[in-house]
C-alpha cells in the first residue's frame, strides 16, 4: 500500500522540487566523505588481499582488472548500499518517526499539506538518484585505493594501471551493476520512510523505527543483489 501510494503520488503535482534538491544534498553530498573513506579502504584491502594469490599463479598483471571488476560489479554497490542503509535509511526512519510522534506529520495533514508527497516522495526519489551516484563515486575512489595498494609492493604507473582496468572492463559489466543500485536506492528510501511514517506513538518507537529501517534495508539489499546476480547470469 505504502509503495503503491508512492507511484500514485510521484507524478501528481505539486512537485516538491526544493525539498527534493535539499534531500539530494543531505543524502548525496553529506554521504560523500563516508563513501569516499569506505571506497578507498575497499580498493586498498581488496588489492592487498588478492595480490599474494595472484602472485602465486604468476598472474599479478591481472590485479588491476580483477580489483576493478570486483569493485564495480559487486563490492562497491553492495558495501555502499549497506553504508547508505545504515546512514540514510536509519536517518530517514528516525526523522520521520520523530515527526510522527511529535505530531508534526499530523500538523501538515490538518494544514491540508500532503505529508506523503512532501516527506516521502522527495526522500525516496532522492535516494533512488543519489545511491547510484554514490556507488560511481565509491567505484572511482576504490580504484584509486587499488592503485595505492598495488604501489605498496611495486611501482605501477597510474596511466598503465587505468589502461589495464579499461581493457578488462566491458560496457556490459556496468549495466547490471548500475541498474541494481537504483533498486538499492529506492528500497533504502522506501524502507526508511515506511518505518518512520508508521512509528507508533512514543519516543521509544523512534529508536525502533531507525533500527528496524537499517535491519530491513540491509536484508533487502542482499536479497536484491541475489536476484540481480541471477538475472545477470541469465541475460548477460
Amino acid at each position, binding site marked *: 500500500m505504502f509503495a503503491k501510494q508512492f507511484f500514485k503520488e510521484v507524478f501528481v503535482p*505539486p512537485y516538491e522540487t526544493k525539498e527534493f534538491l535539499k534531500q539530494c544534498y543531505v543524502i548525496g553530498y553529506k554521504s560523500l566523505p563516508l563513501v569516499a573513506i569506505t571506497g578507498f579502504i575497499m580498493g586498498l584491502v581488496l588489492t592487498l588481499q588478492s595480490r599474494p594469490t595472484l602472485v602465486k599463479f604468476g598472474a599479478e598483471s591481472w590485479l588491476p582488472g580483477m580489483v576493478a571488476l570486483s569493485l564495480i560489479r559487486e563490492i562497491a554497490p553492495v558495501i555502499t548500499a549497506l553504508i547508505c542503509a545504515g546512514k540514510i535509511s536509519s536517518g530517514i526512519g528516525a526523522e520521520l518517526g*520523530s515527526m510522527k510522534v511529535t505530531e*508534526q506529520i*499530523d*500538523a501538515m*495533514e*490538518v*494544514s491540508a*499539506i500532503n505529508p506523503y508527497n512532501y516527506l516521502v516522495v522527495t526522500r525516496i526519489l532522492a535516494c533512488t538518484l543519489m545511491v547510484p551516484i554514490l556507488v560511481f563515486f565509491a567505484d572511482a575512489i576504490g580504484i584509486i585505493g587499488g592503485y595505492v595498494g598495488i604501489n605498496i609492493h611495486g611501482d605501477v604507473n597510474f596511466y598503465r594501471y587505468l589502461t589495464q582496468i579499461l581493457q578488462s572492463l566491458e560496457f556490459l559489466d556496468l549495466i547490471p551493476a548500475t541498474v541494481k543500485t537504483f533498486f538499492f536506492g529506492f528500497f533504502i528510501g522506501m524502507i526508511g520512510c515506511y518505518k518512520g511514517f508508521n512509528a507508533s506513538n512514543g519516543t521509544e518507537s523512534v529508536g525502533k523505527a531507525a533500527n528496524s529501517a537499517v535491519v530491513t534495508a540491509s536484508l533487502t539489499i542482499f536479497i536484491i543483489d541475489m536476484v540481480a546476480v541471477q538475472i545477470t547470469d541469465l541475460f548477460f
Partner: protein
Amino acid sequence: MIKEKDNIEKDKVSKTKKQEPIIVIKDLHKTFGKDNKVLQGVNLTVNKGEDLVILGRSGSGKSVTIKCIVGLIEPDKGEIKVFDENVLNLTKPELNEIRVRIGFLFQSGALYDSMSVRENLAFTLKKHNRDLTPEEVESEVMEALDNVGLSDAIEKMPSELSGGMQKRIGLARTLILKPEIILYDEPTTGLDTITSREISELILDIKHKRKTTSIIITHDMACAKLTADRIMVLKDGVIHAEGTYEELEKDEDEWVRSFFQ
C-alpha cells in the same frame, strides 16, 4: 479585565440571539483495538462564533473527538458536519478544502523542528498561496507573529523556544491561513500559571479580533472559565453534562462539580 468580562458577556448575549451551527456531531463512535471504546455516541453542536470547552478525564476521548473533526482519526460510526459538509463522506481534496478553513493547535505546538519560526509559518502559507511574492509572505508572517506577540522570535529554531512560545508560534502558524474554526488541543497543558493565563487571553483575543469559532480541550479550569461560552463534560465516551461555567459549577452531579473545585 473589566473590559474583557464585558466582551465575554456581549459575546454570550449575541450567541443566544443567533444560533448558526457550524460543527454538528451525531452519534460518534470510536473503538481502538478490540474493546477500548473511547467514544460511544458523542453528540455535540458548536454554533458560529462560539467557544466550546470540552472537559473530561484523561483518556475520555476529548482529543479523539476533535481529531475526528479534521479527519485525522476515522470514526467507526456517526456523522460529523462542518460547514454543512459531512466530512466523513468527502474525498481527500474536498476534505483539504475544509481543513484550510479549520485551524488546529496541537498540545505540543507541533512545530516543524527542521525549520525556523519564519519557515514554519511561511511553509504553511506558501503551500496554499503559491502566487504570493516573498514580500507578501514576509508581511503575512510578521502579522501572524505580531498577533501572538512573538515577532522577535522569527529567526529562532523551535528547539530554542520555551513551551509557551512554541504554543504561541503554533497558534501563529494556525492563524496564518485565517481559519474560521480553531480547535485547541490542551493549549495550556504543561505551562506555568502566568503563561497559561497569557495563552487563554490570546485565545480570547483571537476570538474577538477574528470572530472565530473554537473548540478548546482543556483540564485548566482557569482557561475554561476565561474562554468558554459553553462547556461540555465527556464521560464514558458520551457527553455527560453541558452548560455554562457558572451552571456546571453548581451542577447536581458531584462528579461534574469536582472539575470546578
